């Protein structure tokens, strides 16, 4: 009886494992290449009426679009200075969209993008 239980448990775990295998073997979802524009800011800045420079944290950067959608950004192959120069401004972004995250490939601050405070509105 004990052996029977062990085998049944083993089968259970194998079945569960089997369910996860396709997600591993199918490979990472490559996402869609997109070009987007919006304000480059951080999650924290979005939630408050003011935004301080010390809140600038590359790990929580977001793109806030004209339709008030928030996309989380991940620096893919973009040097840090590009993010720094675009922070708090209207930017154009080229990248790969996966869910609500954009893996950024290039970023360009746009003229007339406003100051940091605008990014927090």
């Amino acid at each position, binding site marked *: 009886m004990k052996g029977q239980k062990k085998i049944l448990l083993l089968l259970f775990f194998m079945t569960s494992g089997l369910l996860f295998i*396709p997600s591993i*073997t*199918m*490979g990472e979802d490559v996402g869609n290449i997109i*070009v*987007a524009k919006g304000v480059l800011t951080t999650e924290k800045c979005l939630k408050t009426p003011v935004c301080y420079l010390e809140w600038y944290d590359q790990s929580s950067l977001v793109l806030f679009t004209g339709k008030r*959608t928030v996309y989380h950004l991940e620096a893919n192959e973009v040097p840090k200075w590009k993010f720094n120069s675009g922070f708090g401004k209207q930017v154009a972004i080229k990248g790969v969209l996966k869910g609500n995250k954009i893996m950024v490939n290039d970023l*360009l601050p746009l003229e007339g993008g406003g100051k940091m405070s605008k990014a927090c509105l």
Partner: protein
Amino acid sequence: MSVIWTGKGLGIIMSRILKLFLICILLVLYAGCQKVEEQKGSVEIKILPGYLVESEELTSSTNSPDVVIVDARSAEKYQKAHIHNAVNIPKTVFRTPEDLEYKKNNGFAISPEKAEKVFGEAGIGANSRVIVYDSITFPDASIIWTLLKYYGHDNVQILKGGYERWVSDGHPVTQETKMLKRADFKVKPKPEMVVTLSWILDNKKDITILDMRSFAEYIGTNTAGNKRGGSIPGAINIEWVELAGDSTVKSAEELQRILNKYRISRDKEIVTYCNWGIGRSTYGFMVLKMLGFEKVRVYGGSMEDWSIKADLPIGDIKSIPADL
């Protein structure tokens, strides 16, 4: 009716079930791997032999009478120092008022007469093996490479790593100018390598258009002297340096990753463009050819041509939607 499983019988059944599960796992793994291969593109990407020349190989060829070494850098850089026996053909040679007029009427770079003159004077004949180099921060060697191919001279290669690698590898350079011996360069044009505006308009639904310029030029914040800033709607922006990195061209693995990212398939017709139709566009063309892409062409008119047609749509910062 009840079935009584004895220990031995149960063991046999369980072992069969286990075997079945193992087979299932293997099948799922196999199917998954196949799917990954499909996503990557069914053909493995590699840089084909015969496109690039290592500096060691060039060392033994600098004095060979059949080898013509072309320095595609600017005249100033050439005069400062160049590889022994190299002749200088900078890109400005192909941007005279006559060339612009020819391009306006014919859709691509230079006339056959000009090609015969420039390449003949450089000593390139039917039997010449041409090795081109430039500075790795410019795509200029691809201009010579593509123009020679376009005019029927296939024996042309690129020096891997360009002038910078040559120097850093400790190879000698000189300021001496080669005494040129004129050769008879006969053109045999390959018009299929180049497309015109009307061809793009007729085929745009079925082709992949690659904009090899910078992101700023692509979205039109930098007009680069064009009548209108922006890009051909639907074009994919792969700035040429993404493929070059800090060398002549990135490794096959890196190129595969980049082309997968942009979903570039070799099954579809690909057209590259930049501003002039030579330079960054020919670089993209050359790299895809190196990777064995057969259906690649250059839009000879490029943005200079597209942007002056006011009735044509243009993709720019204003056309980026407010949300994805």
